[in-house]
């Protein structure tokens, strides 16, 4: 009789343990959006820390490789559309295409050099939310001085692939920043002036 109880007790314990494991495992499960962001980040980190690609003489090649990796994850059209906001619909298809290329170049110029100064900072994926076709991935970047920088990626699922359309660093959104700047330039002068300004900025020191 006692033996029977003991078996039952053991069974219950193991079942409880299993349930606990499942419950603990669920929050650690990384979904498709995090997977996508992680894959791209790892790829870029591999390029940046590759000794064969270091040095100023390899800068062009390195930049090209990074751009390729970023292109796969970033939805430039969605990003540009969101940044131009109300002014997007007034543009012709050719203008849209030109602006997407210019905007991509601008971001590349602004941030590529910063990626080059990478020196082993850690990236930790903290949180992920999925709401239908939209998702967010929150990551923390740990610097050497133990400062945390919170980065939030906003993604949209396009054909089974999660693509980034906005990045917030410490709660400040990239798209919102450019949206305000573009809007104020267009309202102050014109769309053509904005394109010219972007062209000048992209051509700087090139």
């Amino acid at each position: 009789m006692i033996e029977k109880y003991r078996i039952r007790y053991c069974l219950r314990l193991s079942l409880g343990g299993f349930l606990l494991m499942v419950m603990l495992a669920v929050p650690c499960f990384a979904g498709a959006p995090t997977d996508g962001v992680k894959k791209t980040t790892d790829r870029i980190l591999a390029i940046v820390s590759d000794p064969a690609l270091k040095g100023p003489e390899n800068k062009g090649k390195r930049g090209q490789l990074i751009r390729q990796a970023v292109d796969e994850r970033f939805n430039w059209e969605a990003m540009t559309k969101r940044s131009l906001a109300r002014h997007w619909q007034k543009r012709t298809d050719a203008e849209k295409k030109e602006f997407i290329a210019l905007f991509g170049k601008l971001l590349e110029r602004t941030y590529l050099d910063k990626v080059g100064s990478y020196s082993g900072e850690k990236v930790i994926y903290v949180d992920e939310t999925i709401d239908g076709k939209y998702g967010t991935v929150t990551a923390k970047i740990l610097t050497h001085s133990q400062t945390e920088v919170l980065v939030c990626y906003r993604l949209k699922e396009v054909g089974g692939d999660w693509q980034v359309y906005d990045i917030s660093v410490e709660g400040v959104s990239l798209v919102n920043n450019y949206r305000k700047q573009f809007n104020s330039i267009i309202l102050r002068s014109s769309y053509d002036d904005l394109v010219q300004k972007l062209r000048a900025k992209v051509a700087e020191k090139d």
Partner: protein
Amino acid sequence: MVRFRLNELKASGWELNPMAIKQGERMKKFDLELCVGLFMILGILCLGYLSIKLGKLEVLGSQGYEVEAIFSNGGGIKSGSSVVIAGVEIGRVKQVGLDDYQARVLMDLPFDVKIQEDAIASIKTRGLIGDKFIEITPGGSEELIRPGGRIRDTQSAVDLEELISNYVFGKL
């Protein structure tokens, strides 16, 4: 002339008796009370109107639609805080609540202000330490947010103290 009139009145059955005079007085008194009463009601109505107008209360329900937004940090936004587009107040915060340890803000917007699906809502501070308000930067999507919908892209209140502490401790 007067006598003639009086005779005429008497002929028509009118009598100058004390009872009638008293009754007239009573009528006058009643008129006065009515006046005071009406005046009081008018006063109360004015007071009600003023308190609704100044307190910005809604009596006849709202003439708009609701849109919600989730912020990771509400920064002390309250119901009644203004919702602004391009610096123009277009609506107010109706309700602030907690949803999965995040701030869920319900806004009341007028029907003639359409919000695009990719609009961004951010919590801002008036001045350096002033009131909090919500700023919506309109997007470019053809899709509009339906009543009861949600602004997906939000930007929480920037915590100045945290930024300073990050800066200070980052220097260690």
